[in-house]
């Protein structure tokens, strides 16, 4: 029985390793050892040229910091907007709800290219082009619909009685939210945060249109290289794109642990 379980575990671990970690490692390898010619699996050469190119770009550190700051801010604002919206959708029924829900999904139903110029003009009118604030706000478009869907499925899973019980026990709504609801919603919040961060991290078109190249983020530096044959550099950049969300995830987990222990001791 135990052996079977272990075997099963090993099987799944192996599968997940092959599906995800192995490709990332292969990319890392490729960034260090370019120039393999078919049918060689690897060329014998080693060098750090790709990483030198990446880190010799004067903007790279700045871009990394901006990318993380923008991603974190987008996650936070998504949380503030999506939690009430998802709650509203999960707990209330009203006429025209499918219509409202469709409108809330609109930004992912419309190709970005179609509305990018119009959104840019809106941004110019409110004076937020070329600013971090503008880029953060525009990143809400491709992320908010997902955040709402993920949070809504989280609320759907919770039975309503949790809130009712705390009401009966006389705990305030505000407190209920922070001490009961948030810990229960954690799986959804975590998924929402990771999903939103990754989407924000991959935005090139919107960032370049609204940020105008002045707000430098990782995709802005990476995309032009992606359009070149320099596969070592592309592979190196791709590794960074894999590492950043993982790093974000770890930090986020740490924050969650802190939050939970704070709630418990309070």
């Amino acid at each position, binding site marked *: 029985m135990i052996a079977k379980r272990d075997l099963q575990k090993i099987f799944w671990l192996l599968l997940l390793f092959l599906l995800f970690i192995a490709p990332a490692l292969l990319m890392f390898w490729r960034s260090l050892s370019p120039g393999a010619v078919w049918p060689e699996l690897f060329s014998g050469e080693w060098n750090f040229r790709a990483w030198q190119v990446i880190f010799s770009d004067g903007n790279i550190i700045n871009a990394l910091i901006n990318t993380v700051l923008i991603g974190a801010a987008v996650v936070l604002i998504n949380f503030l907007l999506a939690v009430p919206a998802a709650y509203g959708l999960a*707990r*209330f029924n009203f006429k025209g709800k499918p219509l409202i829900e469709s409108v809330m999904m609109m930004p992912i139903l419309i*190709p970005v290219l179609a509305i990018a110029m*119009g959104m840019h003009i809106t941004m110019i009118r409110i004076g937020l082009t070329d600013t971090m604030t503008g880029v953060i706000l525009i990143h809400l478009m491709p992320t908010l619909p997902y955040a709402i869907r993920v949070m809504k*499925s989280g609320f759907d899973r919770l039975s309503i009685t949790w809130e009712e019980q705390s009401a009966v026990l006389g705990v305030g709504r505000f407190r209920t939210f922070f001490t009961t609801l948030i810990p229960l919603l954690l799986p959804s919040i975590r*998924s929402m945060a990771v999903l939103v961060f990754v989407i924000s991290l991959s935005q090139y078109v919107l960032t370049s249109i609204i940020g105008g190249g002045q707000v430098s983020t990782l995709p802005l530096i990476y995309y032009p290289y992606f359009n070149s044959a320099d596969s070592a550099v592309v592979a190196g950049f*791709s590794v960074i794109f894999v590492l950043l969300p993982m790093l974000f*995830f770890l930090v986020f987990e740490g924050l969650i642990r802190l939050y939970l222990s704070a709630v418990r001791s309070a």
Partner: protein
Amino acid sequence: MFNNTPLKRFSAFGYLLPALSVILFFAGYGLYSAFRNSLHLGEERPLFASYQELLLESPFWESVSISIWVAFSSTVISLVIGIFLTRRLVRLFQRDDWKFAAWFPMLLPHFVAAYIIYLLFAPSGWFSSLAAQIGWIDTMSQFPVLVNDPLYTGVIFTYVFKEIPFVILMMLPVYQEMDLRYEDVSKTLGGSDWTVFKTVEVPWVMPVSLEVFLILFVFVLGAFEVPALLGVTYPKMLPVLAYEWFYQAAWANRPLAQAMMVLLSAVSLLAAFLILRFTYKWRSHWAMRREDV
């Protein structure tokens, strides 16, 4: 369970308003100007000339069919594999570290995933080199064409790889919520795996699956990066065609590109509305049945 008094309705809008207004504020004018640019305002040609022209273009219809093929097959494959994995692993997934493992591909941006697929499956890629090392093939051309192929195999691979975790993410709460006792009862009564799925799980799984189907389908229909990297010259997927028309010939084809995108948006919005209305009805139907029990 639900109260539908005016007051409740009002407070529902209170919860929805912030998100709704952000979306309308930014996308609203964008949509308006896209629509305006697709029309021939103040020109001699008829107002809807670009729509007419679009519907008569045969490359457009070729793109429609290839886009639907890619969106449909990658969505269905992701859903089937995703639901299968969720069912198999629902107990394992109760532990967080396992859940995290299944999500890994979600951490990858789409263009990185596409690049990985290219590195692995291109005729000069790792699998091809491996096959040559083993001695299965002698020349590159013997390796099956899996990227930049007319059936968009590479594109579909990429989407399946990326979207399975999303399916698991959305389905897992459903299975966790589903009372596993139902399943036991049905199994004791001698139901096969398939009957259990059909009779017990479908009512729960159906609405979420449809929703996930909708999200993934329209996403694949509208996404540019993956087909641009792994697609073929002809037929192109719709977003790639739109991109080309948008930029070529000193912007002369822009109204055509905008018309295509407005049409695509309208169809997606309509589909979203219909699917959401259906799941809404399905849910209230089954909620009532449950309360009857």
